[in-house]
């Protein structure tokens, strides 16, 4: 989840300022979002992504202020069950 362009991101602004004052003048913009890791059971990768996207639209993201992106990451070895976790 990332703040939409044009939506004031006070956290990003504060971090941007701090990075600049530490000497990283190359930083031109900072946006602060969040990552939600879902461990879910699904038939295949496509349906896992589809389900995660539906969850984002319904609850996890606010379309007014945020955009979202769903991607699959590997479940660490030893973790049982899921075919993949959508983030």
């Amino acid at each position: 989840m990332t703040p939409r362009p044009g939506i004031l991101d006070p956290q990003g602004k504060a971090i941007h300022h701090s990075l600049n004052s530490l000497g990283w003048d190359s930083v031109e913009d900072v946006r602060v979002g969040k990552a939600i890791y879902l461990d879910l059971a699904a038939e295949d990768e496509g349906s896992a992504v589809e389900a995660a996207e539906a969850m984002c639209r319904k609850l996890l993201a606010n379309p007014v202020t945020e955009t979202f992106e769903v991607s699959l990451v590997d479940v660490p070895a030893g973790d049982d069950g899921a075919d993949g976790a959508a983030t």
Partner: protein
Amino acid sequence: MKVAVITFPGSNCDYDLYKAAQQVGADATFVWHRERGLDGYDAVLLPGGFSYGDYLRAGAIARMSPVMEDVIEFAHRGAPVVGICNGFQILCEAGLLPGALVRNASLLFSGKDVHLRVERVDTHFTSQYEPGQILRVPIAHGEGNYEADESTLERLEGEGHVVFRYVDAAGEATDAANPNGSWHNIAGIINDEGNVLGMMPHPERAMEELLGSTDGIGIFTSLAASLSAVAS
């Protein structure tokens, strides 16, 4: 006038709102977020607080409470709904009001008295105020920064949906008087139909001289007057 005060886990202004409704003669009832059905109520009030600890986004999880389906239906019938602070956040999350409340521009929680200018007096909630009246009412929030996309903001201003604006003591909507970075100093808005009000400041905490201000009373007397006009 029968008024429902919806209580969520983490609501903390529910008793203030209950008392405020009683103070203007309403028969107030707490309705737990898991209850269903709002038949028989004349108005619904959503209190401030930190429902579900503000997890995910303020109001996002409360919006999924069973009773919210009834609140949405109640609002769609044209009956009056007021959301204060967390209640405003929940109404935005539920899509009953446009836009969203994001983190204060200062990144800090802000609890203090502010001045508000009454921008509309032709609503169910503000008829007992004078046009342009300046109120002193407390705020207490960390996520009260009103944001929306540009076309929504233009429409809000163009169609006069801004009901309260943060101003200084002289009534000017300056940046210094804006406690949270809200676009155009927006403190409270009303929906297209005029029956749903959301505001970040707490009128229910400005009902007694002893507590520093009585400027919040007008919202509740306006609501009572509007409902008695409907009843008669």
